[in-house]
């Protein structure tokens, strides 16, 4: 069944949706590196500002973005707590040998903020780019390394297939799970061995299904004349537009700002 939850793409036609995937991948890379160069509070205005700008350019409801942070909530709490307790400094609150320091809270807060921004910006990449465009972009970016023996086309194909079939297999798993539940399957049982056994009725059919699909796909690809990446042309060519220029400028300005602040701080 085809549903649109492929990857986590959020359909739309915003500025960011229309930026070339290569540009978005590189921009995300630059952002992820530079965010770790920032130490001083002024720098955080810069990284947060860039993230907000990107969010605005994506036109994705903020609530959807925030919901995407749920899986890292536990990391955030640990980061904050760890830093708050472990950094020496002015004590705000103490209990036994544990004390929360002002410096710790500030530092932990910044660390958590960095994590949040990093996840937000990387999820913007996957939210505004279809998985296919993403692999296309990666393939083009990796192509120069082909001369060094890197099988870029094959890697991209593998990624495309994996991305395409993850939701399919997920659907399949769900269907099998329901079918076994209809036969009274209980999944929550005690003991690791019993747990393994309880999962077999799901895992065995899932593997069988995966191999069946792989077979079908191989036949379908051969029937359409696929014979490796060499000399293959594409239906959708990637092209840079003015949007990529604007994005590149914004990223360059951001990077320059971070470097400038770093130098200023000495």
């Amino acid at each position: 069944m085809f549903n649109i939850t492929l990857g986590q793409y959020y359909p739309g036609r915003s500025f960011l949706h229309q930026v070339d995937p290569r540009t978005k991948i590189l921009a995300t890379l630059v952002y992820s590196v530079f965010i770790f160069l920032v130490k001083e509070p002024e720098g955080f205005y810069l990284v947060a500002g860039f993230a907000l700008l990107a969010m605005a350019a994506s036109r994705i409801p903020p609530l959807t973005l925030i919901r995407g942070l749920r899986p890292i909530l536990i990391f955030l709490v640990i980061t904050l707590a760890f830093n708050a307790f472990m950094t020496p400094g002015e004590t705000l609150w103490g209990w036994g040998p544990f004390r929360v320091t002002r410096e710790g809270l500030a530092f932990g807060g910044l660390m958590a903020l960095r994590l949040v921004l990093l996840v937000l910006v990387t999820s913007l990449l996957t939210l505004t780019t279809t998985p296919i465009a993403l692999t296309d972009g990666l393939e083009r970016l990796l192509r120069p390394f082909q001369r060094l023996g890197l099988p870029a086309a094959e890697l991209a194909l593998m990624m495309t297939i994996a991305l395409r079939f993850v939701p399919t297999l997920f659907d399949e798993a769900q269907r099998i799970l329901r079918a076994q539940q209809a036969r009274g399957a209980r999944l929550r049982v005690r003991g690791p061995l019993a747990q393994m056994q309880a999962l077999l009725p799901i895992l065995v059919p899932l593997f069988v299904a995966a191999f069946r699909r792989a077979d079908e796909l191989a036949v379908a690809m051969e029937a359409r004349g696929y014979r490796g990446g060499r000399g293959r042309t594409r239906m959708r060519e990637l092209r840079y537009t003015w949007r990529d220029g604007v994005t590149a400028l914004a990223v360059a300005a951001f990077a320059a700002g971070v470097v400038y602040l770093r130098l200023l701080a000495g």
Partner: protein
Amino acid sequence: MSIELEHVSYVYNPGTPAQWQALRDVSLTIRPGEFVGLIGATGSGKSTLVQHMNGLLRPTSGRVRVFGMDTSDPRTDLTRVRQRVGLVFQYPEHQLFAATVAEELAYGPTNLGLAPEEVQRRVRWALRAVGLGEELLTRSPFSLSGGQARRVALAGVLAMRPDVLVLDEPAAGLDPLGRREILDLIRNLHREGMTIVLVSHSMEDVAELATRVVVLDQGRVVMDGPPRELFRRHRELAALGLAAPVAAQLVDALKARGWPVPGQAVTIREAVAEVTAALAARRRERRPEGGREGGRAGV
């Protein structure tokens, strides 16, 4: 009442871009002993509806009661619901997992917590019920033919001895003989007193087997009645992307051309009976006028 659905609505993936309302205000009662044919265009919500009948899906709003047990009530023991309503999914052979057919069939009854002797009794009974021999018990389910595997999967659900059997496209992807065998088997189960809900794309199968037909369109129940009445409404069915059984279309076309047929047939067998009777009547009419026309009309 076996299964009661009251104002059931169901939304997939609520609150996401993939949100989809699959059922809209469906009210439906399945009574003991009925054979309900559930039809509808592809994507009309048939599979979603049948998964509500054994508590695999819980309604987004509305209520489902299975032999009095409310499936949305957290105190309801869903294993008991699933024991009473057996659900056979589309392509059920894709859920086979065990090393032998015997183990495969024992899975359901074992999950019900039955004693081993009772489980064995049910395994043998279910295998017989689907018309397979005991020599298969030690075979691997993955070594069976398509039709055999389908029947083993069906037996896996039957072994739980449900009161109601719900089947989602049980004949899909089988050759004509396999189709025939599965449908005959379902007919026999109904004759022996089991309540049946059959999801099917084949109007012919539904016309032949069902005592009641329910038509879904875009998540709504749009028709509900005896097949004989329902399959006369060609135009309405066509508007829903469904075709009345060929037999019904044939006798209606003949009737429209002035043939003396009652125009009640919905199965091929009934159509043959109507047409034969009409031909015989015509022959009787023409015979007094002499000649051999009557004979020719009969050919």
